[in-house]
């Protein structure tokens, strides 16, 4: 089950590399806007417990602050961005995460900020508690619903190799800064 999910994620990555994505971030706006992308997000990560996924067994695992960096000229073929952050929740392990974000479909506002999109993520998590250290990998996907000038609320789901099915609610921000 776990290996099947990892294989599926890798297959999706390969498809992303082959299929040219429709991402407005790749337009040539270099004269006015930086090619560097910066994002900061608050992310609520939770799990459903055992399968089948149910709201009755759902719980919050961490509230994370994630920073994202990308460059439109380096990652021209695939709009790939790097992200890392720290998370915590009461009575849950302290969490450090690092991974990638791929914008499968992204529309930017006229101010070159995130507006809406479909994103795929691959994150490695390190959870530290008095019980020890636990590592996991989590492929996930999110849909961004525009709600403010720099982004909005992203809702999605994934599969964590340690927690099983996961859900995400994220206040997602991101911009190409004006030069």
């Amino acid at each position, binding site marked *: 089950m776990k290996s099947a999910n990892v294989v599926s994620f890798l297959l999706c990555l390969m498809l992303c590399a082959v299929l040219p994505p429709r991402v407005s971030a790749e337009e040539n706006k270099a004269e*006015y806007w930086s090619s560097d992308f910066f994002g900061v997000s608050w992310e609520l990560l939770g799990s459903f417990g055992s399968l089948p996924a149910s709201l009755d067994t759902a719980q919050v695992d961490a509230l994370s602050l994630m920073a994202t960096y990308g460059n439109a000229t380096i990652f021209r073929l695939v709009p790939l961005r790097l992200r890392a952050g720290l998370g915590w929740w009461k009575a849950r392990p302290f969490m450090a995460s690092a991974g990638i974000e791929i914008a499968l479909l992204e529309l930017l506002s006229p101010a070159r900020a995130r507006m809406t999109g479909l994103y795929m993520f691959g994150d490695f998590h390190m959870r530290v508690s008095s019980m020890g250290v636990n590592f996991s990998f989590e492929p996930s996907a999110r849909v961004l619903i525009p709600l403010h000038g720099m982004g909005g609320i992203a809702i999605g789901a994934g599969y964590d190799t340690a927690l099983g099915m996961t859900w995400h609610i994220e206040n997602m921000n991101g911009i190409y800064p004006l030069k």
Partner: protein
Amino acid sequence: MKKRISWAFVLLAVGMSLLVGSCATTFKAGNGKLSYGSINGTSRGSFENKANAISILSPYLFPITKPNEKLDELIEPELAAKGANAAENIQIRYGFDLLGLLISSVTGGFLNWGYVSVSGNALSR
């Protein structure tokens, strides 16, 4: 009845989301001097000026400062400093910087901290 209310809520949420997320705004001069035409004169070099455009959620909904509606206040001091009285090739940009990103993130997107930048060539006629 409940279903109707639910659908109305969903439609309202989608409408609000599109309205706020579009980040739509208006650009104009407070004195009506943002004109179009051929201007002849002596070049006094280029200029650039910017001001913070602060709003709650979206500049279209709850603007706090409106530099986008008083572009003359950004252009005229620059022209005066260069001894010019006209401008051409005016470019108006609206966007964000890293400080704006941090402020927006800390406030959960509630406070929108962008800026309007105006640049162009100064002329004296």
